């Protein structure tokens, strides 16, 4: 078995249509290292690792193993070089046993009774690294932690010397995470190296010996773990100059529009995603929710807007209880919603622009009268939206999918704002948009606030939150780590909260 003494990625560039995902990234890792790869979502961590694993090819840059250049065109090349990757979502055959899954694609097995050999190797690895899992159980019977061990076994049997793990603890309980760390430490002792993709500071501090921080595709910090504090890491991860806030009208505190009390919501996997959450959004206020995505923001928004079942707790809109009402009822009572993943949720790509202009209020007068759609009126409304919100489209009669991302978002925002809602929920409204479109949308949100509405803004873009919000709540694993006024808060403090430290507790670390 060839071992990786030293692996280096030099000068990696990778861009996708219009987005620079990696810019001149250098990474090096030696035998026994556990390297933390830290960054917000969209910082380019996964892209970089997909390049190393051969899923993407870099636009520029080379990869060296033990000083020799290797060309990695596909995952097979990568495996041959001794690199294994464990994705966030496991790639296992649910109805097969552990043994069969590990044996799948194991090329060195003898022709007869191949699984006997695989079983022997599983037992050997279990003893060596403490990777215990029953080889005869079927995958669906196993917990997430055990499934992850199967994935690690699979990689090791394919002679992986360097293991890439993408957010490995995101699916684990704290106890399972500790178990994983023990395994990783044992692997490190045996001379394996590990790259751990994560956005959790504690985790990086606890297990890694080195750390590499990415922000917007470039390396913003690299250090031995003992040389940096959590505050340093947070700064490297989110730190940036904040441009001036947008001008906002000076308005007195309004009455509560949205009140959420002790809310509990489950994720699609039926695990708690929002836990005992309380929040109040007032009139003339933009309430921001910061946090790395996947910490329950999506479930929270869906629960408020009626798209997801509320397990317990209450949601009130203008004093009226809307808990577990249908999306249509909630919408009709004054809440509109700019959804995340705008193309997936917000529009119907193959229908015409004007048909999309009334989605969600198509059932109301004057857009439909009894059971008949009033298309002349719908078209007039679409014309107004296109004009008022500067949507660049050839005509209102083009399929929605012909519009650019920014124009789609302006359309959606226009559609939701023109209903003059009491509460506008905007989830990642400027994600992936160019600067001009993003600025336009932020101004519209402020306009809504200034003219008597209220806005609940979910975003990963801290700069945006600091520029437009009156208050920012930081969400981590389904709870708020704190609710802070942006004027009296630094971006590092928010960064620490995003990484799981309640307000004011980790500043000194």
């Amino acid at each position, binding site marked *: 078995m060839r071992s990786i003494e030293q692996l280096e990625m030099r000068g990696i560039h990778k861009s996708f249509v219009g987005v620079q995902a990696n810019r001149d990234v250098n990474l090096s890792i030696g035998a026994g290292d556990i390297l933390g790869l830290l960054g917000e979502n969209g910082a380019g961590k996964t892209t970089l690792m997909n390049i190393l694993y051969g899923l993407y090819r870099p636009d520029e840059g080379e990869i060296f193993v033990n000083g020799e250049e290797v060309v990695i065109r596909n995952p097979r090349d990568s495996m041959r070089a001794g690199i294994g990757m464990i994705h966030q979502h496991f790639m296992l055959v649910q109805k097969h046993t552990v043994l069969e899954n590990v044996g799948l694609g194991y090329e060195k097995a003898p022709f007869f009774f191949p699984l006997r050999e695989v079983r022997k190797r599983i037992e050997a690895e279990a003893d060596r690294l403490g990777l215990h899992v029953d080889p005869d159980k079927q995958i669906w019977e196993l917990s997430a932690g055990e499934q992850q061990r199967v994935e690690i076994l699979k990689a090791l049997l394919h002679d992986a010397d360097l293991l890439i793990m993408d957010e490995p603890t995101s699916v684990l309980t704290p106890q399972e995470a500790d178990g994983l760390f023990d395994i990783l430490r044992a692997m490190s002792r045996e001379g394996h190296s590990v790259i751990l993709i994560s956005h959790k500071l504690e985790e990086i501090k606890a297990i890694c010996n080195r750390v590499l921080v990415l922000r917007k595709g470039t390396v913003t910090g690299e250090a031995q773990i003992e040389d940096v504090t959590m505050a340093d890491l947070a700064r490297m991860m989110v730190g940036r100059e904040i441009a001036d806030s947008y001008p906002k009208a000076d308005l007195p505190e309004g009455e509560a529009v949205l009140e959420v009390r002790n809310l509990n919501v489950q994720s699609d996997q039926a695990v708690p995603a929002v836990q005992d959450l309380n929040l109040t959004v007032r009139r003339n206020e933009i309430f921001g929710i910061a946090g790395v995505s996947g910490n329950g923001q999506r479930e929270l928004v869906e629960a408020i807007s009626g798209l997801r079942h509320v397990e317990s707790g209450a949601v009130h809109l203008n004093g009226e209880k809307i808990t577990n009402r249908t999306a249509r009822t909630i919408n009709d009572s004054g809440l509109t919603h700019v959804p995340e993943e705008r193309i997936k949720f917000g529009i119907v790509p*193959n229908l015409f622009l004007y048909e999309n202009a009334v989605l969600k209020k198509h059932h109301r007068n004057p857009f439909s009268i009894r059971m008949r759609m009033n298309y002349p009126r719908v078209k007039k409304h679409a014309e107004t939206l296109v004009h008022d919100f500067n949507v660049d489209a050839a005509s209102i009669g083009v399929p929605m999918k012909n519009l650019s991302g920014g124009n789609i978002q302006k359309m959606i925002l226009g559609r939701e704002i023109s209903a003059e809602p009491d509460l506008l929920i905007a989830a990642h409204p400027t994600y992936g948009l160019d600067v001009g479109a993003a600025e336009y949308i932020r101004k519209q949100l402020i306009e809504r606030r200034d003219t008597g509405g209220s806005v609940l803004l979910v975003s990963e873009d801290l700069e945006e939150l600091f520029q437009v919000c009156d208050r920012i709540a930081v969400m981590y694993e389904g709870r708020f780590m704190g609710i802070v006024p942006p004027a009296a808060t630094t971006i590092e403090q928010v960064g620490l909260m995003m990484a799981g430290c309640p307000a004011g507790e980790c500043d000194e670390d």
Partner: protein
Amino acid sequence: MKIKVFPREYAGGPFNALVLLLSLLAGLVAVGVVFALKEINPFFAIFSIFKGSFGSWFGIKETITKAIPLILIGAGLALAYRAKFWNIGAESQLLLGAIFATWVGLNWGPSLPGWAAYLLMFLAGFIGGALWGMIPAVLKIHFGINEVISTLMLNYIAAEIVKFLVVGPWKGETKYGYPYTDDLPDQAILWLFPYSRVSPLLVVLTVFVALFLCYLVFRSRFGYEIRVIGENAEAARYAGIDFFKTLLLVMAISGGVAGLAGVGELAAIHHHLSYPETISAGYGFTAIIVAWLGRLNPAYTILSGLFFAGIVVGGDAIQMTMGLPAATVQVFNGLILTFLIMGDFFVHHRVTIQREA
């Protein structure tokens, strides 16, 4: 040389029509190859098919007779397919329509005036098809059962029910032991144009249904919701559209109009319930192609229904005159559907050939 495929941004009406025409032509060429393999002049064979169906008064009357169920069912299927509900069970929905109408016709028919008998039979037929159509919708939404499987399987169940009825409890006393029910009373039988099997009432009903469903799809709120569900189910959920209500209604209508086709076959042509293969010559399946050729526009199924009825009638004619096997028409239909679906690929994608530098 490299062939590259890109998603197509937008295909206009004329382009769509061109693709449709070329697909049909390619389908006919493929059919021609089959004829040529049988050592029959393909041009002559295809010419004979259309001569058989459109070339004489007799042919035209037969074509209209067969077009009626195809259009009714096809228009209903277009509605279901717009919501991406893949109803493959129109055959059974037709049979249920026929069963319900038979019961009404036999039990109430003798004591009713003609217009009331028609009305109640059509109503019963619609309800029968609708109820049968709603089963897979409920199964899909509440239990996640794939509608292709459930609608397909319900075809067998419905066919067995019909067989059971005609050899068992409903077996006609006047039918000398044949597996038929008794004939409907005279006032429950539709009036036909002389020397034909075409009922003017059915023609009017069929055209009305097709146009009405077209209006429903493109002008009503219900149709808007159907199209949103079909094109982007996530957005439909976001927009607060009630899937259960909408899909249930879609399938009630889709099944219901197939049930009407069953009433038509019963009251205009057979006059009694008999074996399922007799009541419907695979209309429920041929109508899938009719809906597709009609671009899932219920109004266009009038044209595509006539076209396929022509193939069925002309195919029967050349089967006899040229001594071809009975499966000829099915080969014909299958090939044309295949090419139509392949044609769709070009509507949604752009294919370019690049020479390597």
